[in-house]
């Protein structure tokens, strides 16, 4: 533990920079991915015929290995191979692939009786979607979001095989310069796990705030 701390202090500015890149690369795709999958997932749940093709396409996207996307995107986007933007876009694609199904299933899981009751109380379709159906789908969407966020963090590390500078660079540094032994690699693993846990915790906290009725039921 001491050796890890020592190594961290010696290279503090560089490691903190990598940490910032990693946080950004892991967080932005989840947020953007969620914003993209909400309307697509809604369409898949609203129009039944569109569910099988949308979910199949999403599933196919998920079978593309990440390193392949990291390589294809520079050719399509015109970015450099080491540009972190490739990683951000690739991870966004994975998030959408994972979340479209989750959003559709979450919205479909709200019971028809609940929706009918909302309509009977005078909610318009739009009001009903945002005030009743979407909030009730939050637990399901949130569970999917946790999976997406945590796997995203470890996917960021794959980008270091190509040399994109982020916390994964600790792995390549440790492998290439053996004078520090396994310290940089261990430090990288610890930081990656801490980042994953932090994202997971943040989403859990958000879920708690967004679903106050669950605690009300539990307290009764």
């Amino acid at each position, binding site marked *: 533990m001491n050796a890890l701390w020592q190594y961290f202090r010696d290279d503090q500015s560089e490691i903190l920079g990598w940490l910032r890149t990693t946080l950004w690369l892991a967080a932005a795709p989840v947020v953007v991915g969620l914003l993209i999958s909400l309307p697509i997932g809604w369409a898949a749940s609203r129009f039944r015929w569109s569910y099988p093709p949308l979910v199949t396409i999403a599933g196919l996207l998920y*079978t593309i290995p990440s*390193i392949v996307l990291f*390589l294809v995107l520079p050719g399509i986007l015109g970015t450099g191979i080491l540009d972190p933007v490739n990683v951000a876009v690739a991870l966004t694609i994975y998030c959408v692939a994972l979340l479209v199904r989750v959003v559709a299933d979450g919205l479909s899981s709200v019971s028809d009786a609940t929706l009918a009751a909302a309509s009977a109380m005078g909610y318009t379709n739009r009001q009903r979607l945002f005030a009743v159906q979407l909030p009730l789908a939050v637990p399901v969407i949130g569970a999917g979001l946790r999976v997406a966020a*945590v796997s995203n963090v470890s996917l960021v*590390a794959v980008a270091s095989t190509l040399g994109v500078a982020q916390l994964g660079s600790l792995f390549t540094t440790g492998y290439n310069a053996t004078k520090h032994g396994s310290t940089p*690699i261990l430090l990288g693993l610890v930081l990656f796990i801490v980042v994953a846990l932090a994202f997971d915790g943040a989403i859990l906290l958000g879920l708690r705030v967004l679903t106050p009725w669950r605690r009300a039921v539990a307290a009764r």
Partner: protein
Amino acid sequence: MTAFADGSGLPGIGLVPGWLTTAAHWWGPHGLLVSLREHVVYTVVAVLVAALIALPAGLVIGHTGRGVVLVVGLANAVRAVPAFGLLLLLVVTITPKIKYTHAVSWLVSTGGVPYVVPVEIVLVILAIPPILTNTYAGVQNVDPAVRDAATGMGMRGGQVLRGVELPIALPLILSGVRSAVLQVIATATIAAYLPFLGGLGYLIFNGLPQINDPNVGYPAMLGAGIVVAALAVTADLLLLGVQRVVVSRGVSQRFRTGVAYDPNEITKRVGVSPANA
């Protein structure tokens, strides 16, 4: 000539079809065919070892209901650990301790054993959670009434597991194997980051320092990447086919048209809803 002249990005995506259809890039010591074979061998070894560990463990956990918390925690923990970091940690710590350097003809060339061991360990660690969680979930989801009926007919614990719980859990188990295979195929690419090892990642890491070369640079990297993706999709479809053959029709409810049946009645009888069959 000017395909690579663009200063910014990496044009040359248009060269990929030509690269993939050049025979010389398929044959040869580091051609696509050799790399593909190595990739498949790394994958099959890892998934087989993982299944040998995860299947019995998952069946026992699902049957007894013990250790579920441990398994869920372990699966989540593994998801958070970056495979590449774990691999390099193992290479730095255990590779120097492995003294066996002979070639293993079907697996690695001379000197490769100390490096292929950490690769397989990482791939096995990645493949265990999906198989393990799906196996125990599949067994646990079996309708208790079905289990009771089997016991009532005089079947013993092991017989219930083999004759009732396993066949009903099979679709879920196989979908776990499929996601394990997908993950292992994707991750086996990083094996070639290490010396003496190959796989389709070889063409990717070999091209990286000479990315502007039209033969071994970006087109080769992308070509190999496309073959990885194609391998992933092919393996998935193949396993889907296996699933159709080995899963009992009473469970999957795939009957010849014209046979009258009530899906809900069958669902009640075998305890599997159409959604996870």
